[in-house]
């Protein structure tokens, strides 16, 4: 039994490495809009400009700090690079209904989706939030960062600018 599990994992890992050159795309997973409609995340679109995907929750302090800090410079970022930020709320039933009032009252101009049972979170290998992904114009994930401390948005901005060139 042990041996089989081990063999199995070795095979999986070997396969993983052989694939490591492939561009990473968004999974084929449905999330919800604030209006309750289903939306397949692989259909995200920004007409060839970069997309930032940020996993957050209304109860997550550093997540809100990150999105508030970016919110202050978001207009400039959009003008300079055409980037779009998509915030995926991982709030479950307990706080999901508070997402819309929270973001509207905070003046966020982001595209918001709900992932109440963590389907997308799981599919993208997100174990802790905040977790921020950057996608190039071909919707390939080219960079990601976990956690947020003051100033992290500058690194993200530099990466976006590199892509937008």
């Amino acid at each position, binding site marked *: 039994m042990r041996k089989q599990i081990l063999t199995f994992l070795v095979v999986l890992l070997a396969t993983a490495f052989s694939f490591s050159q492939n561009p990473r795309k968004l999974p084929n997973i449905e999330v919800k809009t604030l209006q309750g409609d289903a939306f397949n995340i692989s259909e995200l679109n920004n007409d060839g400009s970069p997309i930032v995907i940020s996993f957050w929750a209304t109860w997550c302090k550093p997540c809100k700090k990150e999105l508030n800090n970016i919110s202050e410079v978001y207009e400039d970022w959009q003008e300079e690079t055409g980037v779009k930020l998509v915030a995926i709320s991982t709030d*479950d039933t307990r*706080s999901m209904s508070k997402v819309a009032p929270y973001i509207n009252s905070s003046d966020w101009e982001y595209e918001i989706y709900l992932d109440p049972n963590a389907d997308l979170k799981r599919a993208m290998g997100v174990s802790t939030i905040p977790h921020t992904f950057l996608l190039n114009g071909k919707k390939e994930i080219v960079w990601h960062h976990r956690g947020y401390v003051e*100033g992290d948005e500058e690194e993200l901005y530099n990466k976006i600018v590199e892509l937008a060139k």
Partner: protein
Amino acid sequence: MRKIIAILFVLPFFGVAQNNSGGIHGDFDLSLQTYNEDESIGALAADEVMLNNAYLNLLYTKGKFTVGVRYESYLNALKDFDPRYNGNGIPYRFAQYNNDGLEITAGSFYEQFGSGLILRSYEEKKLGIDNAMDGIRLRYSPISGVYLKTFIGRERKFFEYSNGIVRGADGEININDILKLTTKTKALLGGSVVSRFQNATNPNFNIPENVSAFAGRMNIVSGGLNWYSEYAYKINDPIGSLIENNYASGNAITSNLTYSQKGIGVSLEVHRVDNMVFRADRDAVGKDLLLNYIPAISKQHTYTLVSLYPYATQPNGEAGFQIDLFYKLGKGNSIGGKYGTKIDVNFSRINSLNGGPSYLNDNISHQPMLISMKGEELYYQDFNIEITRKINRKVKIAAVLAKQSYNKDVVQQQTGYGIIESDIAVLDLTYKIKKGHSIRVELQKLKTEQDDGDWSMGLTEYTISPHWFFTIQDMYNWGNQNIDKQLHYINLTAGFIKGGNRFEIGYGKKREGIFCVGGVCKTVPSSNGLTLNISSSF
């Protein structure tokens, strides 16, 4: 058998290895902790010296095909996890295919119907909750606006599965999509059924072998208004032998109404729960094999002392409501300041059902009143205000004031503690020293006459973007009436983050207490030792 399954899962990887267009991703987490004996806080040493929790998730996707496995390792499980997590294994593996809108999953899956009143299979790793289903699931959307789901399976219990077989179906329709309406007002209707089969061998009583639960829901959205309501009913489900009125049926209702526009948001929420414990095994206890999820109708706090007395839903019976107000004072005036000021106000109150729930009652025909607050036993009440303000480019400030009443006897199933009344204040200051370098200080105080008395907490965090963080914190129970228990709980933490990798090392004392995520809680023993966490997302 297992060998066959393993081969089946590995085969597709070889099959597609040639055309090189799929991808493997996943995440890994390793937690190690040493346990030193510390009599003062009641911490025990571990025989193993060091304990370990780890997992590796792997997902392979190619087009519409996905397979996934999770290897889990508990050698042995950390002390704040259930010891029945023991050894190594692959408790989670699945294959999924999507064919013209029909999604087929074989193996492990997580599923939620509506808000979860009758079904939520999910994972919350920090709590040790993982009630994944093992079986077959289908999802299908025949036309735009109609969504159907159905499954059959057994529920996961540590490294085993439930005796009971669980079947379920859920349908949702989007009225506007079906009728091709383009009105501003939108409506969604949904219904679900979950049924469990389990052999009944009780010689004295005729216990139902098939137990069903039903739920109906609706969601109406119009401009900034959003109204969601769901009602659930569970037919009688006596546990083991018959005690009291435990062949009562169960029901729950939840409803929330929110309104928001730029700068302001309001949320109102009520729920009422009567005998709604629903499991994949009628004899299971504690948090084992739960099928449904009824979240706490109170705010999920993040600061330590504001969540020192956290509420957990009493699924046997409770009624509660919650009001939230989110407001942003405008930029550029004297009150709002240069950058605006955010104010969040929250009030929640939960009490017992009138005359107790249907279940814990000698009177067979007992039906608790629909709504009753006056004179009922208070379970929890929380009034809190949170203010966040950016002073200038270097300084940010946040403050929380809270007043909480916590029925320790009910929430922790103890006797003689009564209701703990506490007042809490938190101040959180962030100062940006120079590019990439910031310091953050938290000062917290909790005042109460009961239980362990007053607490203070201080925290200092130094961060260097984008890689480093260092934290020192001290929780001090200076108000404990027992002088020997007026203790400091000091913790040091340092971490390094780069891309998808995160390393964290910590040393210190953890206080015995309740740790909650999403209103589901676990008791954590006191401990003293070194912790190491390495995690990776790829």
